[in-house]
């Protein structure tokens, strides 16, 4: 369970946060995109650490999924409202 949370799930959380941040970070589009990508690697590592620190494997999956959903919502709303280049 922890392994599931640490590997695919932390990458997934990092990915959706990369999308969300790329949409909301200020500055030029290319700059926000690059900055979001740089930050995403840190998110991925921290998420994996959390997966092992959480009280239980289920809790890790639950918390990380929620964090991912939040980012997905931000990204989806932002893309629906604006447009992509």
């Amino acid at each position: 369970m922890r392994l599931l949370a640490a590997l695919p799930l932390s990458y997934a959380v990092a990915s959706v946060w990369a999308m969300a941040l790329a949409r909301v970070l200020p500055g030029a589009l290319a700059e926000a995109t690059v900055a979001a990508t740089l930050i995403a690697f840190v998110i991925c590592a921290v998420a994996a650490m959390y997966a092992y620190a959480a009280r239980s494997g289920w809790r890790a999956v639950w918390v990380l999924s929620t964090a991912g959903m939040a980012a997905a919502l931000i990204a989806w709303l932002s893309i629906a409202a604006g447009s992509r280049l």
Partner: protein
Amino acid sequence: MSRSFRQSQAGLHTWSGLLLGWVLFLVFVTGTVAFWREGMNRWMRPELARVEQPMQVLAGAQRFLQGKAPDAKSWFIPIATESSPGAQVFWQPQPKEGEAPRRRGRRDTQALIGADGLPALVRETRGGEFFYRFHFDLHYMPVIWARWLVGFAAMMMLVAILSGIVTHKKIFRDFFTFRRKKGQRSWLDGHNATAVLALPFHLMITYTGLVTLMALLMPWAVVANYTDETKLFETLFPQAEAVERSGKPAPLVDLRTLVRDAETRLGGTVGSISVSEPGDASARVTMYRAPSSMLSSRPPSLAYDGVSGRLLWQSPVHGAASLTAGTMIGLHAGRYADTLLRWIYFLCGTAGSLMVASGMVMWTVKRREKLPDPEDPHFGFRVVERLNVATIAGFPLGMGCMLWANRLLPVGMADRAEWEIHTLFLAWLAAFAVSLLRRPAASWVALLGATGLLLGLLPLYNMIATDKGLVAALALGDLLFVGVDLTLLVFGAAFLLVARRVARFRTEPRREGRARGKRIAAPAVLEPAE
């Protein structure tokens, strides 16, 4: 909270480390050697003279290309330096209709221009380029798969480092502690010493390594903002507008004068030149600043009219995030580093290789003590133990054999460059067989000893068979050859020393773990990185 958090991270540290430790070891070792990529390019072609006048090489390159590919689509000319073998020039022929565009790097559209400005006839070798490419592309497998595998290993490494910091609470006190002859404790101390010693380096190199592959590993930010990613790359890597061939012939300006002009404008040396539509009235010359002259790996460039030599375009300044990414990649590759700093990179890389190797061996040492019967371990344990021997001792053996192949394979041999590389893998395969067939304690000794002999004897062979041996190179003042050969001697001696330590303890099974504890902890250097 802090105590349980620390314990939780210990499990993560062990499993993320073990899972991809072998890949990480290969990546660390070849990456460490690749800091001397240019130097190895020259060392592996000992018949070449040292470049003393880069501009003479450039003039020769222009002359050569004008004769060889006067109406090419484009030329690419790197500026030779004292550590490079010369200028490896490429050209791209005009695309023929209905034919796929040719890949750059094909052998029939490139040449090496030597110090005298003439095309050099030398042994075929990939030189240091092999180590550089293997570091992220591996070999014998599709490049994209390899990069995913290496990227995944790097992500694991980042997690292993961060959780490792958490796990070792008394990290700095541990660093000053070395308990010899204490079995598992010695291993742990050795692992901690190599890890903490270069901790900022390990953290930097792992994170920046991920950044070098970020377009592949983490494309999602791009997906969120762009439907067509080429638009992003046009912004990040701006280039002057492409030119069309006019059909009116016109002589190309002397590239040397443009280099002088570009160097004053760029505020640093020029590293490479590309020429579009040479020999045509529309010709365009682009000058790139050398990555060795700046921290960022995204050098600014200038575009000139290829006939009049007028400046037409200069690359815009990078934004903060793009500059940050470029600087991280620059930090990773270390091209900016001068010789002293390059040595520090090399030593840190060596420490990193040792950190991975000792961590892997520690996994077995730690578990052996807990086994119900240490003399007859279970299957999984034996697999890890033997894969450790095959990788940690076997891969350096393969590298040693490759360097010998570079010296010994006949110069005119077909596919010679490829066979140098096959030699590495054949030797590694043999090492793998040895580690499967014999007891680990015996194969450690055999493989480490053989590697030590191979590395240590190579400088002697160079002294006898080439005119760039230690003494001759010292007399010539060619420090690159002196440095590589001395490093080989040191690493050869270190391997032999370690092999002897292991052999001495072999007869006492109870103390075997302890013996191998010193295997890595005793000499500060182990990997054959030249």
